[in-house]
């Protein structure tokens, strides 16, 4: 067991009422309990008492997760570069339409995983779809991290009134259920793009913006909480005493310590964003066809569920494995970097 650092909180089991006390002090808003609860859970799970054995190698699970993610990313990038020997994802092969995977009647030879209802090769759709899904999810989370992170850092560092204003702004956005907010933003942004005649705007960009904006308060609150605790440390005080400017202290002293928390949350955030893109696609406002994404492959052929379930469940499997891997890695990273609730 490593020696706990001075600011390290006792493991979860030691004092079950701690969060309640902090709630009573007013330092813990109920919304925060959610994030904290999630961190709690993984802290308890990963090390029995909230502390992971340091120094051991990554487990089999983590390597499987890394392997799957690496595979997906490589396929997505290579497909997009046109290096992979894939069929055109938008070309219809009539004979193959709605054929399932591994058909043996000869109509779908050469289409290992079958075709969608328009006779487009599933393998090609899935591979190109990975690119759209990943780019939207990663872009959205990066957007959220840059803006949420900046606001969170400012709120956490300056505290007081700045903090109060930014936190209540976050709360307003959190008052609207995330999916509803994302839907509204996509609808309005798309409407705005259409009515100003800017239909050349990549629809993926609108999705990135919408999901990104929704994630700002979520990522921002976590950054804020982490920045708040780090800003009270001696080295920050020392830097301030030496006359360093706030911007410099935030970027050089506080930010590097906040990054681990942001990184582990980013992994979970990408998982959530992938699901969000899927949800929006099913509601008809995801990545715009014919460009495939995991979500819109499902959304487009949802009506074919009965006759050709493979069109729905192949991309669903991709989403499942990717989200599972990201969740798992997020937990591992959090335990490794010792983020725990001290960051929240």
């Amino acid at each position: 067991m490593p020696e706990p650092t001075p600011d390290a909180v006792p493991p979860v089991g030691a004092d079950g009422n701690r969060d309640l006390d902090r709630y009573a002090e007013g330092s813990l808003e109920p919304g925060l309990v959610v994030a904290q609860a999630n961190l709690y859970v993984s802290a308890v799970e990963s090390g029995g008492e909230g502390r992971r054995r340091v120094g051991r190698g990554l487990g089999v699970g983590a390597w499987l997760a890394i392997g799957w993610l690496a595979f997906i990313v490589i396929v997505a990038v290579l497909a997009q570069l046109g290096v992979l020997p894939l069929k055109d994802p938008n070309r219809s092969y009539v004979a193959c339409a709605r054929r399932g995977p591994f058909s043996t009647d000869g109509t779908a030879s050469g289409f290992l995983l079958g075709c969608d209802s328009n006779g487009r090769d599933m393998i090609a759709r899935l591979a190109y779809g990975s690119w759209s899904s990943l780019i939207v999810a990663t872009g959205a989370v990066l957007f959220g991290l840059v803006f949420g992170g900046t606001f969170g850092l400012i709120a956490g560092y300056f505290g007081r009134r700045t903090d109060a204003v930014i936190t209540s702004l976050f709360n307003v956005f959190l008052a609207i259920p995330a999916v509803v907010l994302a839907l509204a933003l996509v609808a309005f942004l798309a409407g705005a793009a259409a009515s100003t005649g800017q239909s050349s705007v990549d629809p993926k960009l609108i999705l990135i913006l919408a999901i990104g904006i929704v994630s700002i308060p979520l990522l921002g609150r976590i950054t804020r909480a982490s920045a708040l605790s780090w800003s009270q440390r001696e080295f920050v005080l020392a830097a301030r005493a030496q006359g360093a400017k706030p911007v410099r202290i935030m970027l050089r002293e506080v930010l590097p310590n906040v990054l681990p928390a942001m990184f582990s949350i980013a992994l979970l955030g990408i998982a959530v964003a992938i699901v969000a893109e899927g949800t929006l696609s099913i509601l008809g406002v995801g990545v715009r066809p014919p460009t495939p994404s995991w979500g819109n492959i499902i959304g487009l052929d949802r009506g074919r569920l009965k006759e050709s379930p493979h069109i729905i469940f192949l991309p669903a499997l991709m989403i499942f494995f990717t989200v599972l891997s990201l969740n798992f890695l997020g937990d591992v990273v959090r335990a490794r970097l010792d983020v725990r609730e001290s960051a929240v």
Partner: protein
Amino acid sequence: MAALRLIARRFLQLAIVLLLVTFFTFSLVRLLPGDPAKTIIPFGSDQQRAALAKDLGLDKPFLQQYVNYLGIPVIKSEGTTGLLQGNLGRKYATNQPVGELIKQSLPVSIQLVIYAQLVALALAIPLGVLTAYRAGTRTDRAVNTTAFGFLALPNFVLALLLSYVIGARLKWLPTAGYEPGWLDPLFDSARTPSVEHLKYMVLPVIALAVGQVAIYMRLLRSDMIATLQENFITMAKAKGVPNRRILFRHALRPSSLTLLTVAGLNVGTLIGGAIVVEVIFGIPGMGTQIATAIAAREYVELQSYIFVLAFIFVLINFAVDFCYILLDPRIRRARADA
């Protein structure tokens, strides 16, 4: 007295949040570039556009428009009605008042969310207690691993899976459709509850609840583990109180505060999940309305839906906070002193 002051303060916060939410939904429609009437109903006729411009008071200054939208008495423009008068705008394609549409669809969604929440808690509480009691054993690990798996299963995937396997293949339950339940007549007297209602709700509720079970269970488990190490539990054990009684009587209550808070806040997630689940199972709730409104670019309608959902969600959060205050005297005191 102190509790009263605290509640008054929470009320003020509630009002401010609601005000900002309305300002946000209001701005969304007004900030669309170009001629708002044209953007708001791109497929409408000139006549409809004129009606819209009159309804929205588009010729007035921005802030006056907002006041009219809220319907604040005295300072609103003569002869207009706003949110405070219950005016939620109209669906311009059919000229129906949005309030009517909400009256028909809201109870459907509320029932779905309530069922899902109840099922999730009914499954999560015993599982949480079990895994906490057996922490570190094979049972614990098996349940936790399964829960982790379900966490990665988006509710739309689960909904489609259930619809396919149970509905289309095994034909045990309908794959789509809806019959009115107990809440519908309260909103719309023309509807009568039907026994069939439950049959249509089973699959959507499972699709919505399973992801929450995993969250709630893991949460309760970690809190329970902490509680089970407290002295009063050791005391109870020493007195020879049966295990089941210790777990469900002594340990569950102090461990459930966080769970209740999260369950309250999670209603937001459930509302979001309900939208997509409703669309998949063809349930005529708010989710289906929202999806149709987006497809038809009915922005005024959409604006009202967002407002109503945010309003309900903020109220629930307020209620949860309120319960917390009632449940725990320490919070009552500390918050009031602050």
